[in-house]
């Protein structure tokens, strides 16, 4: 049985921890709102981009002279995995579930005899993957200094991926991130970037793709569009990730706060019990002392 003083100290320290987790939960909640708003604000652009791309790329598919970003290199020997995770921990299984998905994917590809290269965005993914794939990690992109995620950050990553692609470093690129469903549900997702996946073209209102006039010809627009689409996809992944991270952190911190509360209750019960036991013991000592006289 620990002494009363030790129990008191324990309770005080658990209370302090609870205050911290509570504060972290509230910070995460407010950041989540912001991240969610950012993710929602970015949606129209991505949606329009998809629609335009679908119109434009539909006819190009299957052609021999389609741009390599769209058609790929024609091989699928070397895969690049872009693993987007958070910079910080304390958000439940968020980072590890993305890392696990990437690891499973990498293991599957390697079992098929393919080469795998990894680009880490975010420190936690790097920490999780470097033990197994240290040699395959090409680079780590650090976004710790970034307060508010801007398109230029995603564009920088997109430019890196494009540069690697042009050097012929890989044939297929896949990005791993966590899709934000709700505060309690984030789904780790893999999305293929190169060759670009073209959404089904829906007939545009007011005329299909056929009667479009192109200023600067079709190919050069597409050549301009595809790299941008890559950056947009990465941007979207990062925004989804930011919202997911905050959601996961909020839930994790909420349950941590609750756990601390349970622990405090148990400790307080223990404390009161041993205090009572001590009082009883002292009383017995006094009474038996008096009786002996």
């Amino acid at each position: 049985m620990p002494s009363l003083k030790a129990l008191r100290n324990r309770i005080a320290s658990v209370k302090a921890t609870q205050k911290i987790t509570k504060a972290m939960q509230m910070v995460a909640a407010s950041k989540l709102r912001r991240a969610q708003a950012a993710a929602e604000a970015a949606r129209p652009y991505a949606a329009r981009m998809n629609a335009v791309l679908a119109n434009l790329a539909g006819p190009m598919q299957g052609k021999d002279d389609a741009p390599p970003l769209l058609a790929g290199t024609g091989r699928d020997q070397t895969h690049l995995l872009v693993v987007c995770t958070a910079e910080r921990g304390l958000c439940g299984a968020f980072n590890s579930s993305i890392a696990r998905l990437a690891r499973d994917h990498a293991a599957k590809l390697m079992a098929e005899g393919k080469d795998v290269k990894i680009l880490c965005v975010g420190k936690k993914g790097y920490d999780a993957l470097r033990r197994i794939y240290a040699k395959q990690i090409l680079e780590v992109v650090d976004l710790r200094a970034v307060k508010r995620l801007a398109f230029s950050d995603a564009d920088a990553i997109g430019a890196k991926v494009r540069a690697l692609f042009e050097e012929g470093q890989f044939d297929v690129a896949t990005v791993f991130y966590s899709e934000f469903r709700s505060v309690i549900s984030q789904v780790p997702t893999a999305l293929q970037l190169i060759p670009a996946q073209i959404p089904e073209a829906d007939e545009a209102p007011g005329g299909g793709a056929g009667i479009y006039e192109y200023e600067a010809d079709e190919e050069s627009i597409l050549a301009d569009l595809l790299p941008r689409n890559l950056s947009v996809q990465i941007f979207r992944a990062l925004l989804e990730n930011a919202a997911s991270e905050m959601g996961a952190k909020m839930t994790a911190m909420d349950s941590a706060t609750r756990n601390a509360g349970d622990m405090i209750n148990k400790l307080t019960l223990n404390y009161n019990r041993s205090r009572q036991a001590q009082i009883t013991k002292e009383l017995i000592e006094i009474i038996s002392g008096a009786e002996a006289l």
Partner: protein
Amino acid sequence: MAESFQFELVSPERLLVSEKVESVVIPGSEGEMTVMANHAPVMTTIKPGVVTVKPASGAEERYVVFGGFADILPTGCTLLAESAVSVKDFDRADIARRIEAAKAELAAHTDHGARTKAEEFLHQLTTLEGIVVPA
């Protein structure tokens, strides 16, 4: 009163404009163009420049855009800008920084094709600076 149509200006970060407008002036890569209702479907890339929006009601508004493309249909027009800000909130330092970056890019390239491209981009930026900064 001219007919109005739906115009949307979106940047990757957010939706800037979505309203009924009378006409929009777009800095297309092949030259400026004014879009009005029932325009033939056109898809064009845009160069850094100023987009002038004339809403169906209210005052004209101007936005600075840096590259992107426009999707024009008879029923509406969508402008996907790489980066867009209202002229009112435009930051001088920002364009100065972009010009510096473009100059550095120009200096970094050695082959002819890339140099021409970078030079053109730099020229577009300086023109834009000339339009926007004294305002």
